[in-house]
């Protein structure tokens, strides 16, 4: 050594990136919100099962991706606020109100942000399926579909093509592109998105956890038994919430 | 000299001409009205017993405990106003945890001393009243078993056997007969149960609950309630002894 020491990092870095990917798609009268369950840091798989998708109530499901400690803490605080709302108003908070709440909570941390990308999916008060996506400091919009996280750049273009029919010409003289896709098609797209992302991205894999919220106006109020879904909704009269779990490659 | 209507008893900050603080003496009266609480310090442990007078059949059995835990190795029995006693217990816990943070597991003496200082402060000011409660505080520390009693005046004396409340005189008589250096903690449980049953005055209050806690080898040097089977046995033996006595 020449007597001089190399420059040292002066600051503790309070963030890390825990990988994984989330995705949500809204249909006319349903919403699908999904995420993988792998949690990583760098090349290390910390655990094969750390949920990133959370049922908030019978019509809202929140997916969080980014820095896991912030994500878990944020979900915990959202859930607390929703519970307080229930006690005050004797009903579940509507989806659009949850979306605004999340914006407010994120922006409150504007100068020490939650390093988290949120996607909120569920059913609006008018019965339509909805997806809201957020940036870490609260900017948000309602969309039909959104992917976020490690494999966003792999999944979003696929979704643009398959959901928004970008770069696809309708058959001349044939029917126009559909505005909304049926549930079975959406489930297939979500599953394929994750198996593909697992193939190409090291931070994605292990297990797929997919929540499906059915509006009361959806013609079927149950899912095809072959999907092997578990119902997790709490009331018989409200919206129905289901979870589907699928193994993904673990390498 | 009667204290009534002299005006010297209106404040804890006033002495009477013959050097007494009547408010403190009244506080002692409040203790004397309470069910008896005793504690026995023997060679390898301390046993607490309380005669908890049941004021209503509607009360849940086991509720309103008058023996409380202060630290893992320290306990406290109270005689007098339960509410005041609970306040003292809370204070004792704070003192114990404060001492523990600074110096490690506190000695019984240090906690009793601190509690004494606290109680004494309530004998100095006109804006407060002394605690209507005597706190018998004991446990097992690095120097072995220890037992103190903090009175409303703030004094904290160390004892081999302590008693407070209605039956204290009779209880002290019985305690004086015990051989503290020879008894085991287990044997002391039987003695404690016997004394509480003995001093209980059936004519005045019918119902009472016996409450007993201990610390020693058998409790792994944790202050805990006396185990059920031992408690039941001691309780029964005490009742039987009383029957035969009559």
């Amino acid at each position: 050594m020449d007597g001089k020491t190399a420059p040292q990092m002066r600051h503790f870095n309070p963030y890390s990136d825990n990988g994984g990917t989330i995705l949500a798609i809204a249909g006319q009268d349903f919403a699908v919100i999904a995420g993988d369950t792998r949690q990583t840091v760098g090349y290390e798989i910390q655990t094969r099962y750390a949920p990133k998708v959370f049922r908030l109530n019978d019509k809202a499901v929140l997916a969080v991706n980014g820095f896991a400690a912030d994500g878990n803490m944020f979900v915990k605080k959202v859930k607390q606020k929703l519970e307080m709302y229930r006690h005050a108003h004797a009903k579940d908070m509507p989806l659009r109100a949850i979306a605004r709440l999340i914006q407010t909570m994120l922006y409150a941390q504007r100068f020490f942000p939650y390093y988290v990308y949120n996607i909120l999916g569920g059913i609006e008060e008018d019965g339509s399926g909805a997806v809201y996506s957020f940036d870490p400091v609260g900017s948000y919009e309602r969309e039909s579909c959104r992917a976020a996280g490690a494999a966003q750049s792999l999944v979003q273009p696929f979704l643009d093509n398959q959901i928004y029919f970008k770069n696809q010409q309708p058959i001349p003289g044939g029917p126009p592109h559909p505005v909304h896709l049926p549930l079975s098609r959406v489930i297939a797209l979500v599953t394929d998105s994750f198996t593909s992302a697992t193939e190409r991205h090291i931070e994605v894999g292990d297990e797929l956890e997919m929540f499906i919220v059915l509006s009361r106006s959806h013609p079927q109020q149950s899912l095809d038994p072959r999907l092997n879904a578990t119902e997790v909704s709490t009331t018989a009269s409200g919206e129905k919430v289901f979870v589907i779990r699928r193994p993904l490659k673990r390498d | 000299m009667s204290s009534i209507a002299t005006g010297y008893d209106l404040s804890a900050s006033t002495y009477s001409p013959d050097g007494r603080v009547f408010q403190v003496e009244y506080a002692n009266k409040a203790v004397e009205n309470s069910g008896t609480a005793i504690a026995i310090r023997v060679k390898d442990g301390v046993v607490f017993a309380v005669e908890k007078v049941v004021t209503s059949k509607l009360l849940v059995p086991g509720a309103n405990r008058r023996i409380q835990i202060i630290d893992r190795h320290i306990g406290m029995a109270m005689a007098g106003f339960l509410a005041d006693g609970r306040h003292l217990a809370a204070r004792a816990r704070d003192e114990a945890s404060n001492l523990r943070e600074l110096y490690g597991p506190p000695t019984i003496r240090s906690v009793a001393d601190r509690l004494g200082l606290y109680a004494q402060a309530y004998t100095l000011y006109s804006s407060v009243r002394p605690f209507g409660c005597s706190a018998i505080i004991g446990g097992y520390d690095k120097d072995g078993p220890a037992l103190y009693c903090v009175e409303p005046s703030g004094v904290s004396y160390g004892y081999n056997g302590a008693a407070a409340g209605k039956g204290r005189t009779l209880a002290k008589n019985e305690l004086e007969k015990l051989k503290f250096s020879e008894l085991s903690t287990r044997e002391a449980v039987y003695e404690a149960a016997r004394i509480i049953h003995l001093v209980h005055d059936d004519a005045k209050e019918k119902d009472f609950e016996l409450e007993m806690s201990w610390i020693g080898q058998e409790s792994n040097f944790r202050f805990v309630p006396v185990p059920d089977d031992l408690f039941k046995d001691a309780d029964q033996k005490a009742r039987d002894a009383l029957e035969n006595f009559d």
Partner: protein
Amino acid sequence: MDHFPTNWGRPRNDLNDAYNTYPLHQRPYNGPKDTFADGVQRTQQPIVTGTSVLAIKYKDGVMMAADTLASYGSLARFKDIQRLHPVGSHTVLGAGGDMSDFQYIQTSLDTLLIEEEITQNDGHSLGPSEIHEYLKFLMYGRRSKFDPLWNSIIVGGVKDGRSFLGYVDLLGVTYEAKTLATGYGAYIAQPLLRDAVEEREGQENSITEEEARKILETSMRVLFYRDARSLNKYQVATITAAGISISESQHLSTEWSFAEGIRGYGAQTQ
């Protein structure tokens, strides 16, 4: 009034006096002050550190292992430090990272537990998942104040017939898994632990105590061979429904004779 004559009639801002002789006292600064000019010093790096902790779920509960070394940089400073700490009667913590921060955590958890035991005294007690949740808040709270507790901690335990194995670190990041390893062990031992557990996928709770002990011993040995901040003395904690036991420190047997044949290590010079 400035009582230092050397200051009189001098420019106010030169630090070393160009007109006077050395040594010279520092002149008082009378300008506006920025309290945070130097910032507040907080933990920027760990000082005395422990290395990996390993843990595995098995048939009867959780088994955890950590060596007994606390290093001061590359110096093996303290060679008999216990890094496995029981919390209550259902939980064991194992910590890597800064040992003084870990001692602080031990003290604060002990205080918490005494408070719970005593003031509640309601027959309930904190189990491993509650301790883990509490630690998550403690660690996340401190990282959010930019004053982290510099540790990675494994929380293992059994309560009400359920075994728990969780992780929390200086960032407040948490997760649970059937096998856990912190620090260097995350790279070297975790694959070995996963191998042992995942080969019995679907019946992972069939690992016996002896098998679990064997798996941990093997992994600790590999770590001792490869981790320069490790020691061949380690302790094992087992947490089952019956309670906690933390072993005396035990010695790892190692084989070094092969090294004789390695060029640059043994007797060979060329």
